[in-house]
């Protein structure tokens, strides 16, 4: 026995340390259970298609003969796929090797013998917890049509529809919302059951012996109760005796109460959870974005910045600890969350990879203390993300630098510089301002030199910008990170360089097309 135990423990350690095994397990876990995994949606779509094709075949064969291939497909192929899925889910639901290792370590620590029986019980308990979960039961029932010779089991194909709950997120949201009112629904169920039971028995007692009454059996009495209590009232089975009609009146009144209670339960469950649902939907949308600007604090300058970024079709997310400001951001058409920008938890909730998905964090509270705190919080999570921050009081500049801000934005300095240029070159300043304004047809653009552009246009001379009525102000060289004004015709271009061009936006677009065009020069 000891030898067997040792063998089992060694095997558990082997599995736990095996990269290939763990990779496969992680892959299947992601595919089956991880909503963030990019390939899961394709798997879910395939399963949904299988479910619908299975149900379609079932409906079709009610009135018409179905080809044997389709029957085999429905009964065996789909069932087999579902069986594989079921077994994979059972596998990834809990780790057997982990339980064995934990128990071995525990026994080692306390100097006890490894208890195989205890471990087996623990493993079975964990597996059965999964097997007996509602979703796993539905999965199992969906495999039943495999035994299609048993005619009754064919109806289990319909259980495959319930599997949709697994694959469609909205169904999961629906059930999770209703789950919050579990106690109320149980109470309602108890009340409705009692009313149905009492009314069925009462109507049976009152009507069963009346020769004119259609209610002859307890089943008919039960059917009548359900139809009446649900306020449907088909009229095919009705009470005819005075006593029976009195029971009907009481049941109808009780039915109204049941119906009202049910409706209000649904409504209140959704009303209470609406904000949470919206928030989780917002977070889901944010986490899908590849490059977002995260604005921390939504005050005057932030409003203008967000408006301009939105106009330029960038993804902007606002977080602010003031509910009022978050509401303002939402009214302005932004994605906004009532999170504290100074809390690490806020960024964890956002569920985004800051290094990859965030273009820049903009600390735009008009309060240096809040901006320093936000910048430090962000820096403590991620050392690379680009942080810009407003500075309200020049005395706090060093504090922002120490908190890890990459670019400090001091509005007083901007005003000073604008004034400087305006007193020096008012006409030129106005002209440049006009060029930079969004309403002007003349744009200033940066055109990145790609390998494709470089293959056809290795030097400035080849660009033909004047033909496109474009002014080439200069080239920003990647290699030296320097700007070269008015480059000579023989200036060689490199991948990663930027052309700084000025011209009518339509001509710039044409020029860009001309540069990126695949054909020969």
């Amino acid at each position, binding site marked *: 026995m000891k030898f067997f135990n040792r063998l089992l423990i060694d095997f558990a350690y082997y599995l736990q340390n095996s990269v290939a095994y763990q990779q496969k397990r992680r892959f299947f876990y992601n595919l089956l259970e991880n909503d963030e995994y990019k390939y899961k949606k394709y798997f879910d779509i395939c399963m949904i298609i299988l479910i619908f094709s299975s149900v379609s075949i079932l409906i079709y064969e009610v009135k018409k003969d179905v080809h044997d291939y389709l029957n085999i497909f429905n009964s065996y192929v789909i069932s087999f796929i579902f069986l594989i899925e079921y077994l994979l889910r059972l596998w990834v639901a809990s780790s057997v090797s982990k339980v064995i290792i934990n128990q071995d370590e525990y026994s080692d620590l306390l100097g006890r013998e490894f208890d195989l029986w205890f471990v087996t019980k623990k493993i079975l308990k964990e597996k059965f917890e999964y097997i007996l979960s509602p979703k796993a039961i539905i999965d199992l029932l969906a495999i039943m049509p495999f035994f299609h010779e048993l005619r009754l089991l064919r109806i289990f194909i319909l259980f495959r529809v319930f599997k949709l709950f697994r694959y469609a997120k909205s169904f999961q949201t629906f059930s999770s919302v209703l789950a919050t009112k579990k106690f109320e629904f149980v109470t309602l169920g108890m009340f409705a059951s009692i009313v149905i039971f009492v009314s069925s028995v009462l109507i049976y007692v009152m009507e069963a012996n009346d020769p004119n009454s259609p209610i002859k059996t307890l089943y008919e009495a039960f059917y009548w109760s359900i139809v009446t209590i649900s306020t449907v009232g088909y009229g095919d089975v009705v009470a005819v005796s005075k006593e029976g009609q009195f029971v009907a009146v009481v049941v109808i009144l009780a039915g109204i109460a049941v119906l009202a209670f049910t409706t209000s339960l649904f409504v209140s469950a959704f009303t209470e959870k609406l904000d949470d649902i919206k928030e989780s939907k917002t977070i889901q949308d944010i986490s899908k974005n590849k490059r977002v600007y995260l604005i921390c604090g939504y005050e005057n300058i932030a409003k203008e910045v967000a408006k301009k970024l939105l106009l330029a079709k960038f993804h902007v997310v606002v977080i602010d600890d003031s509910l009022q400001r978050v509401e303002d951001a939402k009214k302005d058409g932004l994605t906004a969350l009532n999170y504290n920008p100074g809390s690490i938890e806020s960024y964890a909730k956002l569920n985004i990879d800051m290094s990859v998905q965030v273009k820049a964090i903009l600390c735009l509270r008009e309060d240096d203390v809040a901006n320093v705190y936000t910048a430090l919080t962000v820096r403590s999570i991620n050392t690379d993300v680009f942080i810009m921050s407003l500075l309200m009081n020049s005395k706090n500049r060093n504090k922002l630098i120490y908190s890890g801000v990459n670019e400090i934005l001091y509005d007083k300095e901007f005003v000073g510089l604008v004034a*400087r240029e305006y007193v020096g070159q008012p006409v030129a300043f106005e002209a*440049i301002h006009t060029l930079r304004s969004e309403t002007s047809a*003349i744009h200033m653009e940066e055109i990145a030199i790609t390998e494709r552009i470089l293959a056809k246009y290795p030097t400035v001379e080849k660009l033909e910008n004047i033909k496109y009525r474009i002014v080439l102000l200069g080239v920003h060289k990647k290699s030296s990170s320097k*700007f070269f004004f008015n480059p000579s015709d023989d200036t060689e271009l490199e991948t990663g360089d930027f052309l*700084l061009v000025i011209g009518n936006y339509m001509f710039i677009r044409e020029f860009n097309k001309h540069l990126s065009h695949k054909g020969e020069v």
Partner: protein
Amino acid sequence: MKKAAALIFGYNEYGIEIAKNVKYKYENVTVFSLSDMGFSIENKDDYDIEKFDVSDDWEHLKSEYEMQDSIIFCALRDEAENIFLTISLRSAFQESMIIALANNNEDANKLRMAGASKVIPIVETTAGIITDMLKKPIITEVLHGILYENSNLEIEQITVHNVEYFGEKFPADIEWHKEYNVIILLVIHEDMSSEFIYSSKTKHHYIKKGDIFVAVGYENDLKKFKKLVGDER
């Protein structure tokens, strides 16, 4: 003798930044404060500080400064006071250049109505610079260097006096960047309307005396070019 000066109303961080930045152009820079409390001794050499009241009649300014050549900045933090100050100064000095700071576009309109020649809306200006930094970082860096910093590259407005030099040529037909190592961006006509160098209108416009070119280039090249077109102010 009266002197031209930069008169900055508002002893606050905006006023001080303006004072620092206009010092290169005006020998006399005075910052006016509403209160005589808490004057900092920093930058005492850059500007003078005087106390004022918004209900002043400005007679002392008239007697001390050449107001037509002076520039006035209204930079009070209280918007209502700033508008009142602008109206008050405009009524006293019809010909002066008055630049006013506004918190936002709404206040900017009121300041224009109050007589400001130019309004700098703080929020919009700051937001514009931030957005430019994010959208077009390289352009912003280059323009910032050209416009605001002491780089060799400069932007100049050059008035054409020596029109004969160009003969009967259209601006778009001249290879400015090759011939003079300057790039002409805009042509500003007599009516002060500006046109892009390659716009259809400029393509059919003969260079005339009084036209202003907005040119970018190195300091020496611009000087030479100015000499050629007869703008030797």
